[in-house]
């Protein structure tokens, strides 16, 4: 269903691969926006965690990425597109505990193989597509309309 521009709050955020110093800023900015417009707390928490995990995936594995935030009164849509190595076997990557993280990443507390499963767990709807060698696209959706079920 086409939506008139007026009802959509749309914002883009760039993420730089390998930039651990600034990692987490995008999820913080998004969290601030969600709080400002009065999104339900439980959704803010879930969305913050999901977008942070996705952001970290870009920082750790991709060259660069872009988060597109789209909010309408009905739904919150976060799209993460990155340019990078992509994921060869998505089913395997979705398994809890599976990780290709390096030793350094593990030292920083990442790479427990919980990232993607954690995003899926927190989102109302979740979609992932990837082309190995090109990049990955992740769609994270939350329903805001209380009458609509998951």
């Amino acid at each position, binding site marked *: 269903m086409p939506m008139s521009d*007026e*009802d*959509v*709050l749309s*914002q883009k955020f760039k993420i730089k691969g390998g930039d651990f110093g600034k990692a*987490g800023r995008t*999820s*913080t900015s998004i*969290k601030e*926006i969600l*709080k*400002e*417009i*009065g*999104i339900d*707390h439980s959704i*803010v*928490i879930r969305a*913050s*965690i999901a977008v*942070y*995990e996705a952001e970290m995936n870009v920082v750790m594995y991709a060259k660069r990425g872009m988060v597109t935030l789209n*909010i*309408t*009164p009905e739904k919150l849509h976060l799209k993460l597109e990155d340019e990078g190595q992509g994921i060869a076997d998505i089913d395997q990557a979705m398994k809890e505990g599976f990780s290709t993280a390096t030793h350094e990443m593990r030292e920083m*507390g990442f790479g427990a193989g919980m990232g993607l499963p*954690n995003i899926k767990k927190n989102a109302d709807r979740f979609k992932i597509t990837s082309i190995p060698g090109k990049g990955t696209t992740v769609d994270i959706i939350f329903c*805001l309309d209380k009458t609509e079920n998951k």
Partner: protein
Amino acid sequence: MSTYFHSIRIDMDKCEGRMKCLRVCPTQAIRVRHGKASIIEEKCIDCGECITVCPHGAIVPLTDPFGEINKFRYTVAIPSPALYAQFGREILPEKILSGIRKLGFDSAFDLALTCGEVSFAIQEYVRNYKGPKPLISNACPTVVRLIQVKYPELIDQIIPIELPRELAGREIKKKLAKKLKIDEKEIGAFYLTPCPAKMISIKQPAEKGKSFLDGAISIADVYGPLLSAMEGIEKGSYRKALESICILGVGWAMAGGICRTLRLKDSMAVSGLTEIIKVFDDIERGKLRNIDFIEAYSCLQGCVGGSLTVENLYTSYNKILKLIETLEFEQIKACPDIREVRKLYSQKYFLIKGKFEPRPLKPLDTDLAKAIKKRKLKDEIYKLLRKIDCGVCGAPTCLAFAEDVVRGDADLTGCIFDLPDNMEKISEELSNILNESVSIDLNRPNINKSKINERTK
């Protein structure tokens, strides 16, 4: 009467609108309009940064004057352990407490003992806790308020153990009333406070309960008289005085003191609001789950850095640290009996009566569709602004100004710079959204120019 009690007041006669407070406020709760500062009550977390920075002493902490103690038949002083750090290294708590008695209090209570009990209670709570981690100490009222306002998601991670000063007030009154055969109401328990934030936690506890204390007196106010009062006190045995110190309790004066004296393994300490905000952002993202307990203090280095203390905070921090090291080295353990504490703990002796509730900031609008529109307008307005955060409009940043405008609290014409032509369109949109409740006069498109001209004349 407003919803939130604050321990900070602005003296309008003294305020010259110098905007130092505007820039230092960590929650952007201050506006300077028409040359005077004002506080947005729902945003203020009583950290006291503005008090310290005001060049005219126009922002004042609302502590109790010393004379308050005359209202009671019997008075007890309960000094924060941070007071013990305000004097030279040879002056130990025993002497400080005798000095306080000479000031006119009927008795002075060593809060370190209660702090020690509470440290053990915290240890019990951390051990039995099964929820999301880390747990956050409730010792600093500003931190508790920061969570209520900015991190409502973390509210259940605040430790719901009663504060030592409250427990002390409760128990002392009970015991004294029995001993002296007077009513508990006739006993005044006063906290000697290192910061104004403790004052609000007494007047309006975060968990909405009732305080067992009758007031808070600033350490800075008693410092001078106390120094003279201690002069005449004969020097007792240093060793004996040392042996009466509860190491766990002394730890409460400085950041990291609780973790260190309890020897908690997976714990950490953080002080200073900007640093706390970084750590809380991490917790919110689900990081730091491997940490059991976080001690967080709004003032640098903990309570020794409170705005109502006298000694340089690094000197006082060091004094507490050395004291802890000495006690550790000498293996002095004048602490409460842990078995006794566990027994009381199981009887819910330490639990707070109320519950911490979030007090999140108002969203741009309660209607989501409208809030989205306002948020978009805010972005558009922000794009028009110079983004140099000059503060002349009265808001701390251009972004805060844009938000004030869409909330209807400020007018676009408040910006001293010439705004581009599309400002009119935005004004129109804005007034539609604000339901014409805020009148934006569209017939004055050149108001900015004329205002600047006026200034340059």
